[in-house]
C-alpha cells in the first residue's frame, strides 16, 4: 500500500523556455510544497545548473527549448537516476521512440499528475 505520491519536500528542476509558463509552473510546484530548482529556459543553462546544484528528486522538462531539443538533458538526468517528465503541447507521436517511456503531461499541467508521473 502506498499513499498518494506528493511533491512536498522534493527538489524539482523546471526547464521551460516560455517565461509565463515557467513562472506558472514554479508557482504551482512551490505551492505544492516542493523546492523549485530553476526555472531555466535553455539547454545550456540547464546543463550548467545540474552540474552545480545538489541532489534532484525529479525534473519537469519542456521538449522544445526555443528550437533546441531537450533530449541531451534527458540523457544526462537519467544517467544520474533522476526521474523525468515531459510537459509539452506535442502529441506523443512526435517524440522519438528512445524516449517513449518518459511520462508525458500535456499542458496546462497539474501538480498531482506530475507527482504521480514522477513518484507513482
Amino acid at each position, binding site marked *: 500500500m502506498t499513499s498518494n505520491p506528493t511533491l512536498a519536500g522534493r527538489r524539482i528542476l523546471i526547464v521551460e*523556455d516560455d*517565461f*509565463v509558463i515557467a513562472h506558472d509552473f514554479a508557482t504551482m510546484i512551490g505551492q505544492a510544497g516542493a523546492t523549485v530548482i530553476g526555472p531555466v529556459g535553455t539547454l545550456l543553462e540547464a546543463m550548467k545548473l545540474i552540474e552545480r546544484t545538489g541532489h534532484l528528486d525529479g525534473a519537469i522538462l519542456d521538449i522544445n527549448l*526555443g*528550437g533546441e531539443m531537450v533530449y541531451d538533458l534527458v540523457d544526462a538526468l537519467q544517467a544520474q537516476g533522476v526521474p523525468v517528465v515531459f510537459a509539452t503541447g506535442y502529441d506523443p507521436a512526435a517524440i522519438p521512440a528512445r524516449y517513449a517511456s518518459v511520462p508525458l503531461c500535456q499542458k496546462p499541467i497539474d501538480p498531482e499528475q506530475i507527482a504521480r508521473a514522477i513518484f507513482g
Partner: protein
Amino acid sequence: MPDRDKIEVLLRQRKVLADFGDVALQSEDMDAVLHEACRLVGEALGTGRAKVLEIEKGGESLLVRAGVGWAPEVVGHVRLPMDEHSSETYAIRRGKPVISQDITREDRFEVPAFMKEAGVVSLVNVPVFRPGRQAYGLLQVDDTQPRDFDQDHIEFLRTYATILGPVIDRLLKLEELRASEERFRAFVTASNDVVYRISPDWREMRDLRGRGFLADLSHAGRDWQEHFVHSEDREMVQAAIKDMTGNEDLVELEHRVRHPGGIAWVLSRAAAIRDAEGQIIEWLGAARDVTDRRAAEAALRESEERFRTIVETATDYAIFTTDPDGRIQLWPPGAQRIFGWTAEEAVGQAMEMTYTPEDRAAGVPENERREAREKGHAPNVRFHMRKDGSRVFIEGVARPLTARDGTVTGFVKVGQDVTERRATEEALRESEARFRQFGEASSDVLWIRECESLAYEYLSPAFETLYGLSREEALRGNHVLRWMELIHPDDRDRVLDLLRRVRKGENATETYRIIRPIDGQTRWVRNTDFPLWGKDGHVQRIGGLSHDATGEVESRERLELLVTELQHRTRNLIGVVNSIANQTMAHTGPTEAFREEFGHRLAALSRVQGLLSRAQQEPITLRALLTLELQALGAKEGERVRIDGPWVRIRPTNVQTLALVVHELATNARKYGALSEGGGRLSVTWYLRSGDEGQRVFIDWREDDLSPTDEGPSAAERGGGYGRLLIERALPYSLGATTTYELGRTELRCTIDLPLARGSRKPGTSHDQ
C-alpha cells in the same frame, strides 16, 4: 681582102674590145652593158645587128635579153625554145661559135620566124660562158645579106665572148646580191622580230633593229649586254655563247631583256655568216618576244604543280586514276593512306581490289565504269576493302577521263573516308532514339519548339493525357494559337511572357491553368522552359517540361486553408479562455480590474497569433509589432507619437514575449502616461549594434512631458506588477535581453537590449556577416 683593110678591121676590133672594157668596168647595169656589147659588136662586124640570148631558169628557153637593130617588141620579150633543131642550142652544146652563111640554104637548123621576118639571112652564134664553163647564153650577130664570116671574125667574136662572160658573171652576181639584199630587207621589214648583226666573237653589236620592242642601236657597240640583257641572265648568256659558238652555225637561247616597258623574255637565234675560207665574219640574229608564252607556260606549270599538290596533300581523300579497263595508273598519297597499298603495290593492279568480295561478285566495279562512261559520272558510296582486309566506308564518285575526240582514256575516282562520320551519325541516331523512348515513357510532357515560329519539333505522348487533346489536333495549323486556346484566358499573358523570356535566353518556370477540351476540367500545369542554343550563340529552339501540378496546387491550397483554420481556432480558443475566465470570476468574486487586464492581454496574444500565422510570407518586423499594439489602443504616429528605427526582423519564437511586453508598456501609457488624456509624448526608437554574440537591437521606449501627479500610481503599481515582471524577468529569461525600467515624475524610460538571431538584419544591408 687587102692587108690594109684587114689591118683596119683588126684595129677597129681592138678598139671595140677596149671600148667595151671601159663600159664594162664603169657600169653596173646589166642591160646597159649588154646593149653596149651588142652595139659595139654590130659596129665592129659592120652588121648593125646583134643580140644577147640568155638561158632562162630551167634551161629550156632562151630570152632575147638585149639587142641592137631589133624592134622594141623583140628585146626583152621574145623567147626561143632550146630544142635540138636550133642553131642556138647547138652552139651552146658544142661550146663553139656556129655560123649560118645563108639561112635560105641552111638545112641543119630551123631559123626562128621573127628572124626570118626581120630579113635575117646570115648569122653567127657565139656561146658565152661564165667562169667555170657555166653556160650563160649566146651572143648572136645577124646580117640581112648572105655573108661569109671569116676566121678573123670568128676569133674576134670568141675573144669578145670570153671577155663578156666574166663581165656578165660579175653583173649577174651583183644582181643576185641586190636581189638577196632586197629580199633580206623585205624580210626584216615584214618580220616583227628584233634583228641584229654581231661580230664573230659576239663582243660587238654591229646593228640592231629594235622594232619598237628594244631600243634601236645603229652604231657599233661593245656594251650591248649591259644595254639589253637582264643583269641576272648575263652570265648565262655569256656561257651559252661560249658553249655554242665553238662549232655550231646556229646559236639559240632564251633570256630576259630590258626594254622600255620593263622586263621581257626573248627567244634569240643567230646564224653564222662565213666567208669563202669558211671563217665566220658575222652573226645575223633575230629575237622574238616570248614573254606571253613563258608566262603561259609558267602558269600551266604552276597550275599543274598546284593540282599535283592538292591531289597529294588531300590525304583525307582517295583520289586515283585508272586506264579504261580499270587498271590503276596514278595512286597518290591520299589513296595510299586510305586504302593502305603503296603506289608500287597499286599501280598496274585492277581497281577491283578496293571492292569487297560481295561487290566484286555482283559486278559493281564494271557497272560503275559503264555508268561513268554513259552518264559522265557514277556515284560510289559503299564499303571498300583496305590492304589489311578491314573495311572503309567511302563516299565518292567515278568520272571518265576523255581525250579531245571524246574517247574514254581512263577514269578518275575521288572518294572520302566517312567511316568515322557514319559511326558518329549512327551513335547520334541511337542517342536520339533513346531520347525519344525517354520522352515517350515520361509522364511529364517533353517538348521542343522552334524558336521563331514556336512550332513543335517534338511533343511527347504525355501531352494527350495532360491536355486532353490528341497530338494530331495539337499539331494542326498554327501550333501556338492552338495551344493558347487550351490555356485559361486569365493566364495567357503570363504564359506568353514566359516564352518571351526564354527566347531571350532565360530559364523560366510558370504555373498556369488549362481547360481540357475533352472533359472541360481545369488543371494546373507547371512549365519549366529553357533555351536550346545554336552554334551561332543564338537561341535556336525552346525546350520544356510540362508537369501536371494540379495535385500540388490543390494540396498547397488545402494547407493554406488549414493554417487559416488553425489561426481561427487559436483565436476562438483564446475567446473561449476569456469566457471561461469571466464565468469563473462570476463565481469567485471577480474584480473589474482583473477582467479588463486579462481580456486585454488575451487580445494582444490573439493579435500576435495573427502576425505569427503570416510570418512565413511576411517577416515580422519590430516596427510592425509596435504599430499593431499602438493602433489597437487608437494611437497613431504623429505629434505625440514617434516610432523610428531601422528595419529589424524579430524571430517568430521571440515575437510573443516581446509583443506582450509592448502591450504592457502601451496599455500603461494609455492609462497613465503619454497616451493618456493627461498628455505627454511617446518616442520609441531603436538601433542595431554588434555585440559579442552577434547582432543586437537596442530599443528605447520614452515617455516625456507627463503631467506630474502625486496621486498617480507608484512605480510598482504603474507597471501593474505584471508588466515589470515581463520586462525585468521574462525578457532576460526567454530572450536573453538586458533591460532597464525607470519611472520619474514626468517621464518614463524603458530600454531593452535584445540579441537577434542570425539573419535578422534586412538582407542587403549586412556588412559584418
